[in-house]
């Protein structure tokens, strides 16, 4: 099946400066793709290329089988877009803005817009300039989803949103993917992407440096594990288990830093000891990301 988003060698130069270089990506139908990178990495440049706001220096990109530049107009009927640092018309009310954009789209399902407003708890009658940034963001989210798009591009969508609304947004994102659409979610914070994305790409200094599923990233992460055993174990019990980064035994308590899936570790422990209790923190992807973000040569 043809991917929903496909880019091939996509690049954008400003003079000698490569804001984006040789981006090769595919996002399939039903997938939520997280696009991660530190500030200024080139995420927004990539999105502006996809939206035909700027033109590629090299390479091509297509969405839903249509070229983002040549077929831009037809394409925009079928996609939704929420820009970063959203700016709207301050003198319009939320309702006016939605009507304005709906008119430009040749009309949208008014009942669906109403539902979106209720789910996000939006103040539609107030002037946008009088809204808090979070409430303004909600209006932006409605306009991105109101045409029931097959592909949605969201650039830092959680900015200013409270946790309840963030969860509602994640619901909206999942619904698009579950209905066979795809979502391109750009962010510089992992927690936003981790909960909802199937796969992530990490970009730094204009270059894609990693492309992984969330599951495999979790496999790469380091867990801190604490075991309470019936009696103090010998160190030899843990010898030969790949992935143990550090080990500390205090009486019948064992503290382990462990990288990899839990299967091997648990098998080894169960075969040689009698565990009374086991506690582990959530896989800390943050550390993995920090190593990617960190300014090293790639």
């Amino acid at each position, binding site marked *: 099946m043809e991917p929903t988003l496909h880019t091939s060698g996509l690049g954008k130069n400003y003079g000698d400066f490569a804001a984006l270089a040789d981006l090769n990506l595919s996002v399939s139908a039903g997938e939520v793709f997280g696009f991660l990178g530190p500030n200024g990495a080139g995420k*927004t440049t990539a999105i*502006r290329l996809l*939206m*035909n*706001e*700027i*033109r590629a220096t090299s390479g091509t990109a297509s969405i839903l089988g249509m070229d983002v530049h040549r077929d831009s*107009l*037809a394409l*925009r*009927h079928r996609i*939704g*877009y929420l*820009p970063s*640092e*959203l*700016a*709207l*018309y*301050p*003198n*319009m009310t939320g*309702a*006016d*803005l939605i*009507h*304005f*954009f709906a*008119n*430009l*789209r*040749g009309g949208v399902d008014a009942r669906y817009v109403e539902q979106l407003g209720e789910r996000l708890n939006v103040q539609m009658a107030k*002037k*946008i*300039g*009088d809204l808090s940034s979070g409430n303004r963001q909600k209006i*932006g989210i409605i*306009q991105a989803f109101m045409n029931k798009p097959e592909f949605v591009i969201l650039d830092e969508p959680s900015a200013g949103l409270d946790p309840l609304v963030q969860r509602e947004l994640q619901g909206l994102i999942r619904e698009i993917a579950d209905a066979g659409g795809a979502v391109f979610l750009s962010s510089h914070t992992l927690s936003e992407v981790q909960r909802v994305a199937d796969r992530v790409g990490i970009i730094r200094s204009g270059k894609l440096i990693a492309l992984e599923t969330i599951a495999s990233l979790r496999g790469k992460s380091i867990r801190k594990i604490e075991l309470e055993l019936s009696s103090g174990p010998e160190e030899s019990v843990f010898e030969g288990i790949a992935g143990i980064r550090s080990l500390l035994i205090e009486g019948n308590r064992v503290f382990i830093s462990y990288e990899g899936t839990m299967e091997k570790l648990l098998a080894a422990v169960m075969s040689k000891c009698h565990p009374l209790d086991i506690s582990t923190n959530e896989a800390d992807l943050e550390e993995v990301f920090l190593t990617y973000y960190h300014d090293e040569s790639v």
Partner: protein
Amino acid sequence: MYVHNLYSRARTVALGVMGLSVMFAFGMVVYRDVDMSLFDDLPESLMSMFGLTPGEDVASLAYNAIFSTYGALVLGGMAIMIGVGAVAGRERDGTIGILLANPVSRIRLVVESTLALITLYAASALVLLGVGLLTPAVLDVSISGLSVWGFIVQLVIGTIFYGFLALAIGARTGKAHAAIGISSGILILSFLGAGVMPLISGWEEVARIFPWYYISDGDPLRNGVNVGAIAILLGACALLFLAALVGFSRRDLRQRSVNIRILDRLRANHLTARLGERVAGRTLVSKIWVKTLSEFQTMTLFVSFLMCGLMGVMMGPIYAYMQPNMAQLGESFPPEMLAFFGGGDLGTPEGFFQLETFGLMAPIAIMVITISIGAKSIAGEENNRTLGILLANPISRSYLLTQKLIALLIWGFVVAFATFAGVATANLISSLGMDYLNILAICVNLLLLGYLFGALAFFMGAAFGRVGLAAGVSAGVAVVLQVASSMAEISGGWWQKFTPFYWYNGTDPLNNGFTLAGIVILALAAILVLTTSYPAFNRRDLTNG
């Protein structure tokens, strides 16, 4: 903060003062070659209209014509912008909260902003004084018996008053738009009031209620500084400064604010909600061109009202009242001087309207509208960072351009039509006997002139995405071409027919009616510039705000 205030405004003030200096030098060059004995025959009422006094000489003509009118308007306008920027402008931009989060008291904010305004105007006074003394020395024009020093001091203090006015209104209300609107309204009103009242017998003293009166009260150019006038102006400034301090200290700060229009209040009230919704709500967002019209409606209707009422209808009775003096005047008024104000034979109603309404005011009025809309059409959306989300909708860039263009064409037409309606009404009620077709002819030319410079701003905005650049270049080109056109009028320069202003009123349409060549040239030029906007916008990358 004082330094920050100073730096952020210095460039604007420097540009304004430089422009005035150049105009002054140019004016003096032109007037030097004019036979001044002609002025001896001028009726007093007419002279006072130009701010002239009997026994005028080259030097005082230049000082009065350039500094007292253009100069005072420019200085007053800049003072208003600086005064508003001190408090209300920062509230509009949303920067006041973070500024006052520093250990800076509100009083200090007002005091240091005011000090910056005073410093800038003191510096401007010094520069203008230098230019005012140096130019006649270089051109070998005598200024004996003139107090340039007193004249400039009174001018600068008389115009800084409007800065204090804007400061006080802005500091008390926190509304930048209101402060700009009210202050410039008072400036224009007092400019007209102080000029017209002395002409009406029995009403001369009423002129004293207008602050503008004190700029030239006591003829400071001849008699030196008028201490009484200075005391009144400084006293008024001090009171406004106190009002700003008290008003700002006592109120809540505003968030980044939005305009609440009357229509918004109608919509909010449940009794009038349906009416309000019809006028202000969904209809206005049905199409991009309708929304653009609504964004410029207040400004356009204000300018149209000004052109129709003040510069149109009211000019009829004023001319009728002054006609006995005008007729006397005959041909004696030097055309060289009139050329600078747009030309025209003052002995006839056609010449009077050519000079008063169509010379400078009408082109300025229509260009304010067309250049504003043109410059903001694309670049405004880009600078406000709304263009990206607007173009995320399924509309092409060309469609957006055309929609914005429709609004420009409609509002330009409204200003030109209001001018026509005003002058035609004046013609009717005061029985001036001008040909209506000829009035229509000059208004059609006016419309095309407005379209041409609007088109230039439209192109610049579409091609480069910066409002300031688009508006500045268009207005700058207009001023240069207007000056070039009036210079050609005086010296018969070969370049005359290359300036659009020649095709606007150089063929004297009020007397000669339509000139096909003029219409074709102006229209073709506008169409050419507009057409170029499309590829320019379609091919480029959007800027990111």
